């Protein structure tokens, strides 16, 4: 544990807070650290970045954040600036649409949008330009690059054409790619001692778990990871806590370890990294992540954040339940391991003690038939009506040896269908059994009616998705 005097020293140093915007150092000392980057930019008359919703759902405010990848190399990631309080950005670097063109010479992504008539009213266009900009340097050009950007005019077709044209261009070598190479490890936000802001309602940026726990114990503070959930509250002017402890600078929490029997996922690893680094290891994860959220959100959202907010509709939580994951936490009195089966207590309540910090999640690698399903009104970037993850092991006689049926959106917590699982155990999975299991599943929960879907529809989905799983995967 760090001593209090070193803590005090750190807090003092935090007053020297800066943010680099378009390669210019901007002083944050007098800024309200809970103000969103979007509003900060607009007050600074960088008006290209637009507010379409302020909730992280439209992408009009997309900017490029310089991030370190797993090798320590700098890269651009697209983020929603409306969800990023500037206090969380001390010491970081962002690029906005104003940085792209060189005088009257457009950046290739801008030129492609012009050439393919990719703008009509133009209000969403800077956001698309920034998403494509990040995609351009990361070699990503499919719809997932832009599925966090809403356009009401074009129907996306010309923007897709612009992306396709960019994909055919040679790997860029320009001032931006050179800049990234120059930043290299030096700019790795994981290792740089980072300044923050100690104003009331400010952000603290510990660089170790011990330090984070000490800060939490000595202040009325809330944890702040990617901010994709809490950022919405801040954007809407709601206060969260007098102090926020940003945990995204703690290197230990960024580790992603792939072992023989399991993977261990650091609690602040952005989901985009799971998508790339765990590809192929968990079929159900591979199926869920493309529909989890838009790119901008996945670049910030974390598994720890998912577990911390413990939403009944958190799409990765059924995956953890179906895999009997273990949540590793640390607190003032030491480390604990919480089995996921007993982690969720009630609506957004967990077994976590308020002063504990989720450090990592261990997920066993299973040799099992598995699938993930998400049903929503819109297939991309929507909140589940019902999400389901199924894991099944059959013996040679098609008898159920092991089964996990985990759901989101059907109860106050992410939940397994324990009764149906128990009923299935040992049974031969023939057509009649599947029919009966589906019927049981329909009765196992008492979901709510809401604007996303009726209780009847949710019950139908719970049963039907299992039938679909057996029908399509076995």
């Amino acid at each position, binding site marked *: 544990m760090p001593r209090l005097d070193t803590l005090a020293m750190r807090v003092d140093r935090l007053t020297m807070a800066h943010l680099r915007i378009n390669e210019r150092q901007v002083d944050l000392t007098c800024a309200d650290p809970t103000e969103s980057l979007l509003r900060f930019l607009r007050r600074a008359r960088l*008006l*290209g970045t*637009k507010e*379409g*919703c*302020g*909730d992280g*759902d*439209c992408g*009009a405010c997309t900017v490029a954040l310089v991030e370190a990848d797993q090798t320590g190399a700098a890269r651009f990631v697209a983020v929603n600036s409306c969800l990023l309080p500037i206090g969380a950005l001390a010491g970081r670097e962002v690029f906005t649409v*104003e940085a792209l*063109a060189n005088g009257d010479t*457009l950046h290739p992504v*801008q030129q492609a*949008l*012009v*050439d393919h*008539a990719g*703008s*009509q*009213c*133009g*209000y*969403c*266009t*800077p956001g698309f*330009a920034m998403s494509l900009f990040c995609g351009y340097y990361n070699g990503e050009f499919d*719809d997932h690059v832009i*599925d966090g950007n*809403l356009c*009401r*005019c*074009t*129907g*996306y*077709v*010309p923007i*897709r054409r612009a992306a396709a044209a960019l994909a055919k261009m040679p790997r860029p070598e320009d001032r931006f790619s050179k800049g990234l190479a120059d930043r290299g490890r030096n700019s790795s936000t994981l290792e740089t001692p980072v300044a923050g802001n100690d104003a009331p309602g400010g952000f603290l940026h510990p660089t170790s778990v011990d330090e984070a726990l000490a800060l939490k114990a000595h202040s009325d503070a809330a944890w702040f990871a990617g901010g994709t959930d809490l950022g919405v509250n801040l954007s809407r*002017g709601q206060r969260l806590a007098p102090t926020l402890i940003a945990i995204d600078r703690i290197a230990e929490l960024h580790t992603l370890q792939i072992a023989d029997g399991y993977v261990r996922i650091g609690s602040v690893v952005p989901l985009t990294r799971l998508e790339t680094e765990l590809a192929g290891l968990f079929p159900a994860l591979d199926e869920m992540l493309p529909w989890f959220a*838009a790119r901008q959100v996945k670049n910030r959202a974390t598994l720890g954040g998912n577990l911390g907010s413990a939403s009944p509709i958190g799409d990765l939580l059924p995956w953890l339940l179906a895999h009997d994951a273990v949540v590793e936490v640390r607190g003032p009195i030491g480390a604990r391991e919480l089995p996921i089966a007993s982690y969720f207590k009630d609506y957004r309540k967990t077994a976590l003690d308020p002063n504990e910090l989720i450090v990592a999640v261990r997920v066993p690698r299973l040799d099992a038939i598995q699938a993930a399903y998400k*049903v*929503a*009104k*819109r*297939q*991309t*970037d929507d*909140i589940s*009506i019902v999400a389901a993850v199924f894991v099944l092991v059959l013996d040679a006689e098609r008898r159920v040896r092991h089964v996990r049926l985990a759901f989101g959106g059907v109860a106050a917590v992410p939940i397994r269908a324990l009764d149906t699982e128990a009923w299935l155990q040992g049974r031969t999975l023939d057509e009649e059994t599947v029919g009966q299991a589906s019927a049981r599943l329909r009765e196992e929960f008492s979901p709510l009616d809401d*604007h*996303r*879907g009726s209780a009847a*529809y949710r019950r*139908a*989905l719970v049963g*039907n*998705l299992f*039938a*679909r799983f057996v*029908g399509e995967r076995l």
Partner: protein
Amino acid sequence: MTHESAHGHVTGRAVYTDEQALPAKLLRLYPVQSPHAHARLLAIDTAPALAMPGIHAVLTAKDIPGENNTGPIVHDEPLLPADVVSHVGQAVAWVVGNDMAAAQAAARRVRVDYEPLPACLSIDAALAAEQFHLKPARVGCGDVDAAMAASPRRLRGEARCGGQDHFYLETHASWASIDGEGIVEITASTQHPSETQAMVAHVLGIPSNRVVCRCLRMGGGFGGKETQANAFAAIAALAAKITGHAVGIQLPRGLDMQMTGKRHPFLARYEVGFDHDGRLLALDVDMVADGGWSCDLSPPVLMRAMVHIDNAYHCPNTRVVGRIAKTHLPSNTAFRGFGGPQGMLFAEEIQDRIARHLGLAPDLVRERNAYRNGDVTHYGQQLADYELPLLWAQLKQRSDYARRRADIDAFNAASASRKRGLAITPVKFGISFNKTEYNQAGALVLIYQDGSIQLNHGGTEMGQGLHSKMLIVAARVLGVSAHRIQIMTTRTDKVPNTSATAASSGSDLNGQAIKAACETLRDRLAAVAAERLCVAPDTLAFADDRIAAGDQSLSFVEVVQAAYRARVSLAATGYYRTPTIHWDPAKGQGHPFYYFSFGAAVSEVEVCGYTGVHRLRRVDVLHDVGDSLHEAIDRGQIEGGFVQGLGWLTCEELRFSASGRLLTDAPSTYKIPTAGDVPQDFRVDLYRRAAAPTTDVIFGSKGVGEPPLMLALSAREALRDAVAAFGAAREVALDSPATPEAILRAVERVRAT
């Protein structure tokens, strides 16, 4: 040529209403909103809010010096309610503060006492209580009762469609300032600057000549800023008047969705008579639109639905009665298609019902009922230049319809849990405002001595590319390159008495007005050039920035300078009114449309029988834009319109609580399509006319703003076709929007029969 603002869009340099060099001290507004759908206002105590720091005023009904009304047709829309609130979220007062946060904080301190009253929150409730705006409207032809009685087959039915939020990316925005002479200048994101100007003048109790409204560009409009911008502009102007400071407003998304009107939900009850081959003999339709709390544009929206109930099908005996339900919900308004989509949805519903009832292919029944050139619609307009049957046949061939139909039938026979569907639907959409007097436009063109040109017209730019097309028109008439022309901000002090940029008529009306102005200037310049070249003026050609007679020519600039020296005016106005149209609203008969825009689309879908989730696999569109003024812009309208229609028909669902609160007031809960919803295989072709048109539309083009939205009805009918494949039902009811839940419900019904 690219979109005139394309560089501004991609660089972020294009400026919107709330982004100009705003006055240093610009106060901000925030509303005090009603928590009740219907309640009597007993008292408003503004004192606690006024005591807060940074607060300049709290505006209530008694602060309005002029008329407390912003209703565009009927004067039933108080800007601020004096005695009764009529929907949840309605502003009962506006707080004026140093910034929005201060105004918002103070708005929470305004104490309002209400006496809740019974609320009417749906079309059904309004029908039960007989709560309507205005009298029923009627349109029809023939002897419906006799023809119905004589029809060998008859069906009765009911269909509904949901509303739609505009979800323009730029929410409503306005700001107002008052100069030393007391002239009110209002900058607004409005599709109708002249009406915004008039409403501001009414509310302030001053003549229109003391108000200027300007609109730079909108971040999307879609009809949502045709009337709905007026109230926000008026409140900003009122606040400026009362505080003496410039005052601005840009609504946060949630407020925009809660406070503004949307596409009208509709209910239709019908009886249709037809023969054994599916040919329409009689149609009797009772239509009800949910107008919301005030009339707004509901009467013309309803009328457009009533005159599009035929879509592209001929029925010799038709009776349509339309009513506007008066509900305690936000007042529904214009939205791309303006009632047309709702009327045509019912038309397609009826075609499909007839086909499945008779066991015939829906495309065959549609063909049997198709209008031919010279047919007369149920509102008395004879069809001219009617090439839709030709277009239809071409699209069927290009889309390989017959082979794909067979492939899909084979796929469905082999698949129990997934079914595919295919459908082709037509679009015939009348172009012109139903209200005849709106079909006029003006322009003002100024040439300066250096040969540069300023172009002013009454239309507004909301992304549809109007300004780009207008540049093309002016450049073409004057024979100059587009870079010579500066398109100006739309202002009511440059071109007065303009119509809304709406009804797909922006290019038609303003283009002709610009052409007229430019022709006046061209004729004046021709006289000057002719004298210098010693030729007759009518032998001159204007092209490539030169004015030529045979092999001798003068530069445009030379001639402009010569004209100035010869004291020839270099400024001209242009004016246009659409010819031949007339309409008798009492009889529901006339020739309301100058011409029709045509198109057709083929959609192919796949539906999951476990979840009701669908995927749009392929879309083929053939659409008639005449001689396109700008192909990339027209394609953009077609693709974008289709996807917007697709959203209305599939994923966009407005849900209200039992007390009338909008539950889907953010993009987290209200889902417009994303790129992932758009088929990878999306083929759009422009139709090439077989014969020259008999109308004179600007350079042979056709209006394209709204019609493509209704091409998306093909996706809805394809979904119905896929649902039908889950059973052998002779009727396939499908709710709209066809969300996964609605589709699964439809599948279960089909499986149960």
